[in-house]
């Protein structure tokens, strides 16, 4: 059924449909509406779950870890400073292979304090061992939660996942979304069957320490699970299409990419603006396309290399900056296309909630065509 919902509420309803048994979160802007809505859903008995009102994001994810280790499906949500506060737990959850799903309502990192959107928060956690999915719109944000649980709980995967969607731009925007039926979600996402749990009838030890003789193999197994997750996302993304009619079989998505000479690469809500700008440029006869990255971790390097193999120029739009280097996505695209005869330029854009308009996208394409790149786009020179 189609409903017009705020993005946060669409996500909360998606989480409800996934039937987590334990939810633990600490409110933080712009994630707040998600956890408020879920608290109400639990208070209204629309979901049978325990909602733990913790005292910090640190304890929110720690409580989820405990609940997951005890065998329950769990959920949390956060953003920016809250995610930073979870940093240590994020690595721990991934290392302990707990299939927790967490929404990130993407927001800029302080200082200076900003509540507005960019993707520095989750991009900074790219190395933590979590699957990272980025939504372009609220429908995708909703759907990716259901997909994420299906992937994470697969015994071949057993990894946590962040579903990232842009704070305010999506979280606080009303859009029509197709809300799945509970019975369809139940058939797509079976009841959680944990691999190993804390159980007094079958005691095992979780989270032991590993000497140099053992540590590296654990990390290797983590890496292998991450790489296996590529196929799992494709498989369950296709199954999602069969069940709900919206296909997520790809880790990436192309828009007018087949015959493009210049390709933009981006993640998240900016892709909608890019598509509109491409429509304009295409009408003018310019061969521009978009490669949208939906799955950032595991990084779809082979898929990207293939999808971009025919273009002359790539312009990567990064809503983050690896300070002292370049935009994180641009770096990886350069790595992926190393040796190919393709010019790759990176543009840092839209940090701290600065608007990105169609004319900005057009300007970036012009810059790339001129061979000018690896720069902050849209700086106010008078402030520097």
């Amino acid at each position, binding site marked *: 059924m189609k409903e017009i919902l705020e993005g946060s509420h669409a996500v909360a309803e998606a989480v409800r449909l996934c039937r987590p048994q334990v939810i633990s979160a600490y409110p933080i802007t712009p994630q707040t509406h998600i956890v408020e809505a879920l608290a109400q859903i639990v208070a209204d008995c629309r979901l049978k779950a325990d909602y*733990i009102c913790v005292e910090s994001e640190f304890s929110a994810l720690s409580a989820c870890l405990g609940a997951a280790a005890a065998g329950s499906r769990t959920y949390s949500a956060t953003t920016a400073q809250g995610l930073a506060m979870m940093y240590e737990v994020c690595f721990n959850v991934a290392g302990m292979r707990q299939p927790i799903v967490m929404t990130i309502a993407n927001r800029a990192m302080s200082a200076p304090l900003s509540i507005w959107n960019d993707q520095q928060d989750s991009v900074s956690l790219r190395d933590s061992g979590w699957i990272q999915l980025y939504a372009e719109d609220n429908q995708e944000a909703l759907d990716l939660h259901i997909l994420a649980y299906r992937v994470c709980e697969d015994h071949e995967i057993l990894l946590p996942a962040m579903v990232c969607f842009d704070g305010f731009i999506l979280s606080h925007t009303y859009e029509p979304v197709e809300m799945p039926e509970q019975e369809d979600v139940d058939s797509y996402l079976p009841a959680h069957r944990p691999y190993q749990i804390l159980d007094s009838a079958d*005691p*095992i030890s979780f989270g032991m320490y590993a000497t140099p003789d053992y540590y590296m193999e654990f990390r290797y197994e983590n890496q292998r699970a991450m790489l296996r997750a590529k196929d799992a996302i494709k498989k369950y993304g296709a199954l999602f299409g069969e069940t709900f009619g919206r296909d997520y079989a790809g880790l990436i998505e192309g828009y007018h990419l087949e015959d493009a000479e210049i390709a933009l690469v981006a993640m998240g809500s900016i892709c909608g603006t890019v598509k509109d700008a491409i429509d304009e440029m295409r009408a003018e006869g310019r061969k521009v396309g978009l490669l949208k990255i939906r799955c950032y971790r595991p990084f779809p390097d082979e898929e990207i290399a293939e999808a971009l193999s025919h273009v002359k120029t790539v312009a990567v739009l990064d809503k983050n900056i690896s300070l002292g280097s370049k935009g994180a996505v641009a770096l990886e695209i350069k790595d992926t296309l190393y040796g190919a005869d393709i010019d790759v330029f990176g543009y840092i854009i839209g940090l701290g909630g600065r608007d990105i308009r169609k004319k900005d996208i057009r300007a970036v394409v012009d810059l790339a065509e001129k061979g000018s790149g690896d720069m902050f786009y849209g700086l106010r020179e008078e402030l520097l």
Partner: protein
Amino acid sequence: MVDKTIEHFECGHRACGGCGAATAVRLILKGAGEDVIVVSPTGCLEVFSTPYPETAWKVPWIHSLFENAAAVASGIESALKQQGRSEKVLVIGGDGATVDIGMLSLSGAFERNHNITYICYDNEAYMNTGIQRSGATPFDASTSTSPAGSCSMGNKHQKKDVPAILAAHGSPYVATASMSYPADLMKKVETAVNTPGACYIQVHAPCCTGWGFEGEKTIAVGKLAVETGLWVNYEMVNGVLKKAKKVKRKPVEEYLSVQKRFRHLFKPEKNEAEIQKIQAIADANAEKFGIDI
């Protein structure tokens, strides 16, 4: 009735000979009985009991981080409730994880009154990293980060009163115990795990390596702490003091003089003034808890 002949903490772990914490844990698990899930923060206990692929735990056990054991336990308890399971959730962590870095999640778990028992084995310093002071280190103890020196008498602060802090959260049961009094310790653990809500026990667990005494004297040193009034074994029910172990008190010097961490109070010459400050702490404890016979 808990069968106290069953061992849930296996021999073969790697604790130092005479480790107070290892003995305390063995007794704690006897007191807690069957159907228990244990959470441990990072610390000596985790390190000496679980070098992968070995484990000393015969009950389900989980370690996540240094500072989140109470939050992890909260999640476990919540999950058990949702699944209709009745296992008891027990945290066993050191004083660093409890008194210092874990206070945030500990306070949160007690404010929410999860049905968990949190036990702090208090060896009065960060022992697995090399004997640095914690908030539970006693006044004047010399540690590697509160060393005695030509212008220092060691640790400048008294122990943080965590039992009082947690009692103030509305905890239904807060107790202190000593591994030198096994029957009392086991009984208190049994009481705590069978009391609904967030319960706390702080267990005095001498550390022969960190405090500087021979491993065979652990029980005796622990007893001296109680007999001098520097450690008081008591119970608080709903924030009200119910019982404190009475003693015929010995001078604190008897306890201090057998440990290297207080050696600077006696060498090169005996520092009467400083020892009197510590005696005053014991006297205040005795008055507060009414332990004098």
